[in-house]
């Protein structure tokens, strides 16, 4: 079984055909993906800007990070769920798209970022209320770059053909 035969099988499923060929599912999923980007991105941006000391400086870091976290996960779930369905619709096109692979590599880096900084930054934000560590600021700056990279590479997928 080759990768291409798996991709062909995916495209032959009813779900894939329905999303790809129906008039409504694709734009609706695309709209949902964008709304997820606004929600997830908004929460990530504000969290990062607070850690960097550029936004909401009057509020404790832990207030911002902890209170935004549930909505960040809601946004992330929206982006991932709609993204998987969009990918299911045209896996062969994505397989050939360099931008798609850049986006996947960036997603891996997002995972690595979460693992690397979890212990030192995100699991124990209360200790950042006294002073934001250099490590936390580095985490925030990297997070901003990764997020922007996901947006740009994701948008470019539509232009690889």
């Amino acid at each position, binding site marked *: 079984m080759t990768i291409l035969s798996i991709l062909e099988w995916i495209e032959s499923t009813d779900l894939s055909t329905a999303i790809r060929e129906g008039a409504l599912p694709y734009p609706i999923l695309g709209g949902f993906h*964008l709304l997820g980007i606004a929600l997830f991105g908004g929460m990530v941006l*504000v969290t990062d800007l607070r850690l960097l000391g550029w936004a909401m400086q009057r509020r404790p870091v832990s*207030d911002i990070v902890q209170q*935004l976290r549930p909505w960040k996960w809601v946004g992330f779930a929206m982006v991932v769920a709609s993204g998987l369905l969009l990918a299911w619709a045209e896996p062969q096109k994505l397989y050939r798209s360099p931008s798609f692979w850049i986006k996947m590599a960036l997603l891996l880096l997002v995972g690595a970022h979460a693992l690397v900084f979890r212990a030192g930054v995100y699991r124990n934000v209360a200790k950042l209320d006294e002073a934001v560590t250099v490590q936390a600021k580095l985490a925030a700056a990297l997070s901003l770059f990764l997020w922007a990279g996901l*947006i740009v590479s994701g948008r*470019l997928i539509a232009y690889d053909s």
Partner: protein
Amino acid sequence: MNGPEWAFPVVQSIHFIGFALSIGTIAIVDLRLLGMGMRRQTAAQLAADLTPWTYSGLAIMLITGPLLFSADAVVYHYNASFQFKMVCLTLALLFHFTLHRRAIRPEGSPVIARLAGGLSLLLWTAVVAGGRMIAFV
């Protein structure tokens, strides 16, 4: 905008970053108005803190949007989704700077606050959804 191939998608990406910043920060205040998040701060406190970032996002959005429009102005002008988006955007902006702003005040009624938060989220959702549909009609 009709120059190099990468110009349009790059400006679009900046447009996305702008609306994530503006709508994301507006959503934080709206979720607070609805009582669904950020309850350690009041809506007025959140709005005061986030307004510069909301405005930055709006500025990015309102600069990149017309740039994208200029790439194919006539086509967009007649596009039903584009027209829908512009109506929703006008309503969302008018609402944001009038009734929404008043609903955030600490002395306001909680029912009005919830209505304002819900309507604001709905209007901005319609703007984003209308924008996505432009490419499909």
